[in-house]
């Protein structure tokens, strides 16, 4: 998955028909300094966002999320591969 500052791929763990874990499988940004500093903060939070979206008690998550586009597209690809949606 190409996003603004590098290449991102997402791994999804599925158990009992629901997502149990979302994590960043590989991340390559060509050593871009700004991208690295953003990734350190943003990617764990995007993992959280993906999990929180499954929570029955919360309908949305507010936060700064620079790489969300790349992450979500990659997540969709992973889910499609697994036969979701």
């Amino acid at each position, binding site marked *: 998955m190409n996003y*603004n500052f590098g290449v991102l791929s997402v791994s999804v763990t599925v158990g009992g028909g629901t997502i149990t874990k979302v994590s960043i499988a590989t991340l390559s940004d060509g050593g871009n300094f*700004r991208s690295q500093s*953003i990734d350190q*903060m*943003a990617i*764990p*939070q995007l*993992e*959280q*966002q993906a999990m*929180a979206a499954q*929570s029955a*008690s*919360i*309908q*949305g*998550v*507010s*936060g*700064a*999320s*620079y790489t*969300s*586009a790349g992450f*979500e*597209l990659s997540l969709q690809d992973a889910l499609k591969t697994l036969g979701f949606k």
Partner: protein
Amino acid sequence: MSTAGSRDPRPTTFRHREEVMGTIVTLDFFDDRGISSDELRPFLDNAVATLHHADKVFSTWKPDSPISRLRRGDITLGEAPVEVTEVLDRCKVAREMTRGWFDPWSLPGGVDPTGYVKGWAAQRAIDELAGSEVEGVMVNAAGDIASFGGPDSASPFRVGILNPASPKTLACALDLRGAIATSGTYERGEHLINPFTGELATKLASASVTGPDLGLSDALATALVVGGDEVLELIDELNDYEALAIGYDGTMKWTSEFPLSP
């Protein structure tokens, strides 16, 4: 995206994702009477068109956009689309409200209203959707949310705020009525320049502002993360807006009527 056209008798949600403004904007529809995507379609089409129009006019990444041409001095404000004047007028109001802590004119490369436009566009998209009969809608533009209604006819939306210090957790949740914007150190750096010093410096790890309008919420959140306590006090004096600040040490502060959810 494809969905069934028939009504589902159970509480249902319908989600549309739109790639626009350099991110993915998520539009979530809620209705405990069931949702027909066919009924929503004309409203959704208008909302999505609004987002793309804002991107076309205000993208600083596209060299031929009106805002880019204005920044280069190729056109005057009078020659730009009327929305540019509207947005810059609103930015001036936000600059005065924050006593200069939100200042799109202080950024390098000429006036850059990007920090206001994403929220403004999502708010306009919500306004397009208000004509539909759906009970609740959230438009989430990469963490900034405009909404009306709730997940059903009786409840407000419950929204989490990401914890910048502990990435696997949420810092808290709130009952959302209207909009919420969050700015943080992990956001695009050019929004987070101290207008008084020109330095890339923030006093807070995360700042969230909730109120009726997402454009202004976004501007206030940007001002708060850069300006800290002084801006928190300014927001506390506003009638319709509430704020929550998270410091680098994890300390949370919020204005008197911030709608924290247990």
